[in-house]
């Protein structure tokens, strides 16, 4: 099973990217977590550049967008970690989702199990950004886990190299990944059952 991990922070020493790195190092057997690092290359969404729009002559999407779409399509689930800018989702992350969401009927995030975690240096752990990101993901048709992981005061929970060492954070992170894996399994079972019904009909 493959989980794509997308950090909403571009900063080299980002706590959110570190959180996903920690998840990647701790995945259960049979689960591979791949960190996606192409966010900075995604250009601002412009319908004139979006070949899925009927109002443009653009024939191909920007390469970074195509790469993101295929990375999501190739994964069974996506784990997001978001910082909070002005009580909301960072523009770069929202922008990437705006690209991927169109057209909504064929977005690779449609029906995809997704989970959201987040870290901040303040005490609230990007909890509002996580809620907003879950709302956005739901509106574009993803199968959004109804849980959050607000990692507050992140700077105090990492070791000198920036890796998360806080046992409580790591245990909660394990719980999120475990639930995401269960959502993928449930989706597969549901698809198998539906296929069985069709085959029997």
């Amino acid at each position: 099973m493959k989980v794509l991990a997308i950090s909403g922070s571009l900063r080299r020493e980002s706590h959110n990217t570190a959180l996903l790195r920690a998840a990647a190092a701790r995945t259960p057997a049979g689960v591979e977590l791949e960190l996606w690092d192409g966010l900075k290359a995604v250009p601002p969404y412009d319908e004139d550049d979006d070949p899925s729009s009927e109002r443009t002559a653009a024939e191909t999407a920007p390469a970074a967008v195509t790469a993101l779409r295929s990375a999501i399509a190739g994964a069974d689930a996506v784990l997001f970690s978001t910082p909070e800018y002005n009580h909301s989702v960072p523009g770069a992350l929202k922008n990437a989702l705006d690209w991927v969401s169109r057209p909504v009927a064929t977005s690779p995030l449609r029906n995809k199990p997704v989970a959201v975690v987040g870290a901040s240096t303040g005490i609230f752990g990007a909890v509002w950004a996580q809620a907003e990101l879950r709302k956005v993901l739901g509106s574009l048709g993803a199968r959004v886990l109804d849980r959050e992981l607000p990692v507050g005061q992140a700077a105090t929970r990492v070791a000198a190299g920036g890796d998360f060492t806080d046992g409580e954070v790591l245990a909660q992170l394990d719980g999120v990944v475990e639930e995401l894996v269960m959502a993928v399994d449930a989706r597969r079972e549901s698809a198998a059952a539906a296929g069985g019904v069709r085959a029997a009909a």
Partner: protein
Amino acid sequence: MSTSTIAAPAGAWQLDKVHSSVAFQVPYLAGAFNGSFREFDGTLDLADERAAVTGTARVASVDVKDDNLSAHLQSPDFFDAEGYPELSFSSDRIALDGESVRVDGEITIKGVTRAIEATGAAHGPVANLQGNDSLRLQLTTTVDRTDFGVSWNAELPGGGKALSDEVTILAELYFVKEA
């Protein structure tokens, strides 16, 4: 309500899908979202003392006047077409009083089954142009969509919610009894 069974020939009746519809209406702000399902099916079985009606609708065939809304309705925020491809209804408790009809049955949406009461009118039987009996049931019921886990909503800036929890379901079912 004095009741009786439908006075029409016994046996299995076929749903005429061209002249039938399964639709819903949800209050939204000061207006309403109206939608319907393009693909649905139904049965009506009549016996001396008993009438049974069943119906299914395919979630993926939901028809609203906006492609993005249609896609959103099929997502886990609403019906979850992938996980729960069909809505279904069944009843063997149909009571008539003149042309008024009351149907007590079970509706299943998003895997959750609840008892509902639908009311409306029954017309016929009337012989169609081929000489086959035809019968029309117009049924309406109201459900609380959150009972079925269809819970999406949005807070309005001035308070309150954008979308009503109460959904009216309107089924117009036209059955034909082939000789």
